[in-house]
């Protein structure tokens, strides 16, 4: 058997794959954050809570309405996205033009309220959500046992991330979006309804979080704290990738997942901190992030 630094090769390959799976969640969540930050200049601290909400909506649809995983994968992001639109219309839109700090406080407060309500209603132990029948089981890859569902998570995340990137970078809608980020008054002068675009963008970013939540439901137990476990790491990912950089957040998400995976083999106690160590190094050497532009 090949060994690398005293660790058997198959175990390392396994960790690489696991890192990519975790990275898939980081990528999906940080993508949503990056889009929201890029256009709205809002640091959306409620992202973790909305991720959790996505999982809960899927769970609720299954438990109370008998709607399964596949429809939930579409419906839950739509429902939570609509909730995001409401949030933006009623609360967040009042803070444009003010310091970032206000948006951060507001969304942080929203996150605490949403999580608190969920905890009050559903408890903290979490609800079971079964893996859909078509994706149950595992395949033996030789070096590890890969649950089919986790493989699906990586594929779904890559497809959605690339799709989002293509829309933003390669379509006229994306071009308008990017233009509005640069200079909103000018774009508005061309007759484009920028406020509506901003609202829908927030909704889309939130829908991405909810999509990740539905993907996560069968892996983690559906519980009110599931978002706060992720959100801090995801913020670090966004900072490392460069605030507002779409491609940066996707690549950094997957990359840091892998870094974290390897740390779990060599020194598990540090697995929660390694991402922040990377963040410090990146901030010291490239303050704008790996893919960010210095302006």
């Amino acid at each position, binding site marked *: 058997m090949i060994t690398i630094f005293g660790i*058997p090769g*198959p*175990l390392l390959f*396994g*960790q690489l794959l*696991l890192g990519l*799976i*975790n990275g898939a969640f980081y990528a999906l969540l940080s993508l949503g954050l990056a889009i929201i930050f890029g256009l709205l200049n809002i640091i959306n601290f409620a992202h973790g809570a909305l991720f959790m909400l996505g999982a809960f909506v899927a769970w609720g649809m299954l438990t109370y309405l008998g709607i399964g995983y596949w429809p939930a994968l579409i419906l839950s992001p739509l429902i939570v996205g609509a909730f995001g639109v409401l949030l933006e219309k009623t*609360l967040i839109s*009042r*803070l444009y033009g003010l310091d970032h700090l*206000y948006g951060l*406080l*507001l969304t942080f*407060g*929203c996150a*605490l*309220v949403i999580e*608190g309500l969920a*905890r009050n209603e559903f*408890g*903290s*132990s*979490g*609800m*079971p959500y*079964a*893996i859909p029948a078509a994706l149950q089981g*595992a395949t033996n890859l030789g070096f*590890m*046992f890969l*649950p089919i*569902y*986790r493989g699906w998570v990586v594929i779904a995340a890559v497809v959605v991330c690339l799709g989002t990137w293509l829309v933003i970078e390669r379509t006229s809608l994306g071009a308008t979006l990017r233009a509005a980020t640069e200079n909103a008054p000018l774009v508005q002068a061309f007759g484009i309804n920028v406020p509506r675009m901003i609202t829908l963008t927030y909704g889309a970013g939130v829908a991405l979080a909810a999509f990740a939540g539905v993907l996560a439901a069968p*892996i*983690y*137990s559906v*519980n009110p*704290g*599931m978002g706060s*476990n*992720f959100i*801090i790491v995801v913020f670090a990912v966004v900072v490392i990738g460069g605030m507002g950089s779409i491609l940066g957040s996707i690549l950094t998400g997957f990359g840091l997942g892998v870094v974290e*995976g390897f740390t*779990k*083999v060599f020194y*598990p*106690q*540090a*697995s*929660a*901190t390694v991402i922040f160590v990377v963040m410090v190094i990146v901030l010291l050497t490239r303050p704008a992030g790996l893919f960010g532009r210095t302006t």
Partner: protein
Amino acid sequence: MQVDRRSVLTGAAALPLTAALPRSRARAQANKTIRIGVLNDQSGPYRDTGGITGVICAKQAVQEFAPNFAVEVISADHQNKPDLGASIASEWYDRQGVDVIVDVPTSSVALAVAGVAKARNKAYLNTGAATADLTGKACAPSIVHWSYDTYMLAKSTGGATVHAGGDSWYFITADYAFGQQLQRDTTDFVQKAGGKVLGASPYPFPGTSDFSSFLLQAQSSKAKVLGLCNAGGDTVNSIKQAHEFGLTEGGMKIAAMLMFITDVNALGLDVANGLTLTESFYWDLNDRTRAFTKRVVPKTPNNWPNMIHAADYAATLHFLKAVKELGADAAKQSGATIVDQMKKMPTDDDAFGKNSIREDGLFLCPANLFTVKTKAESHGPWDYYKLAVTTPADQAWKPLNESGCYFVKA
């Protein structure tokens, strides 16, 4: 506009803060009122294993005992923070006239509150934390530890697993006081029984939700048993993911060193069936436990009592009996006096039956090893356990001469 924004902000920010404050701010009007403070996690990962159901069970004891003196039950959320727990405890003992604090899960918080109780000679009945130090290094004449501890879990679940052929272990451990002590105690029993420990993954607590990496390491260690030295949501996630990665299909056995019926409920029987675990209380153990459960469940229909909840009830009940014996006036003077009285009297309640409290403050009751039922074997709500073996009270716990408690005569 300005005002609106401010009010929204302060409103949103203040909500979680108010939730953190002790529930009852009422002044201690009558000095003769016996006040019982239930301090536990009411919003975090241990909310369901303790939480409001624990408060309900303590109130149940008061209601059933129907004391001829005034009793009040108050409660607060310690959010699993040792500093917050200690400051609520001081506030309660010093200014709110609280005579006894009950529950207090999370070993780190439990030990902090033990220091507060000890310094003030106030009664402290811990039913929620695992650390065996509460009746060892951190013991005090006014402290009683109820329902379970790391030694008892390690002996019951660990010992039984080795005897069933699980002689090589790999641990996944929450890297703080509780997990480390549980791993140490279990390792002792495994090694004494001739088994060996092949490795361990201590993971950062709290904040870890993905265990797949540790599970993969456990798998490649070729150990026969995966020992989970964690609790609550972490245990649920570890077991769920162990299934996903085919550890159990590969013949590995999972020993959940600390698991409650609430966790089994969260996992679902499809995944949990076949697990072995130890609890000192189960609702369907005998007529008395069923009777107790029947009285309590209507008040907490979605969260049936586990051994912590049952101990909240039993400890409060026994405390009230001791106060009645001493008289409320004398009882309010000294925590050690009440606890001495509690140790003198045998305990008798529907949740645990007839038992006793030892000199060092350890409540001695039988430890039950359970196997989780399959879906086909389960015939009703919360019908989850099959009793595998009961370790009698005199063998389940750490022997008194190893206790390490300073006031125990050798």
